[in-house]
């Protein structure tokens, strides 16, 4: 039986949403799903080499940001980059940087982004992947 396919349109560059994406990837890895992630607009910011580990912006409940970040540490939650990395080790995960999004954040080539990224692509590839998927998410 073929593996189920998951496509994630990853728009968000905030740590709270990226952490959530990491947990979902963990679930997908546990199910041996084939995953394709398309790094869009704000997520491209988070994927830039110089931002990935230092970016601690949160999108929601911003007045409790410190509590949120402290809780992630207290609960031994892996950093989202580590969660993504673990998922890559355990199942098929392809991470594409949307070319346009990359350019918005001054990233012209693959090397401008963290090593988690596999390649730079266009919107056509996202639509194809989405059409062929069992599950489609916009995060």
């Amino acid at each position, binding site marked *: 039986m073929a593996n189920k396919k998951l496509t994630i349109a990853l728009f968000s560059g905030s740590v709270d949403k990226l952490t959530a994406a990491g*947990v979902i990837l*963990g*679930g997908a*890895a*546990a*199910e041996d799903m084939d995953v394709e992630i398309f790094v869009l607009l704000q997520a491209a910011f988070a994927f830039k080499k110089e931002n990935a580990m230092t970016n601690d912006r949160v999108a929601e409940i911003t007045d409790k940001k410190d509590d949120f970040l402290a809780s992630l540490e207290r*609960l*031994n*939650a*892996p950093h989202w980059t580590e969660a993504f990395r*673990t998922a890559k080790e*355990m199942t098929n995960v392809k991470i594409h940087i949307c070319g346009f999004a990359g350019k918005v954040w001054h990233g012209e080539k693959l090397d401008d982004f963290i090593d988690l990224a596999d390649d730079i692509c266009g919107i056509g590839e996202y639509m194809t992947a989405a059409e062929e998927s069992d599950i489609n998410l916009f995060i």
Partner: protein
Amino acid sequence: MSTEELATMKADKTVDARGTSCPGPLLAAKKAIGEIQKGQIMEVLSADEGTKRDIPKWCKKKGFEYLGTVEESGFFKIFLRK
């Protein structure tokens, strides 16, 4: 499997996932299952409530035999057979 049998069960592999939160325990179980033979017993220790339901469901999907869960103080042990 009865509670007594579970309580005295000796696992071939123990996965202590008590220091991690979801999806940590599930991924630890998945990693460890590759290290035991078919027919062997694995025990997963966790303090995460979601894990209690996740692992039996995962067993069903993967064709492993879920044997039962033993509640301890502050955590629980899930037994399964590959």
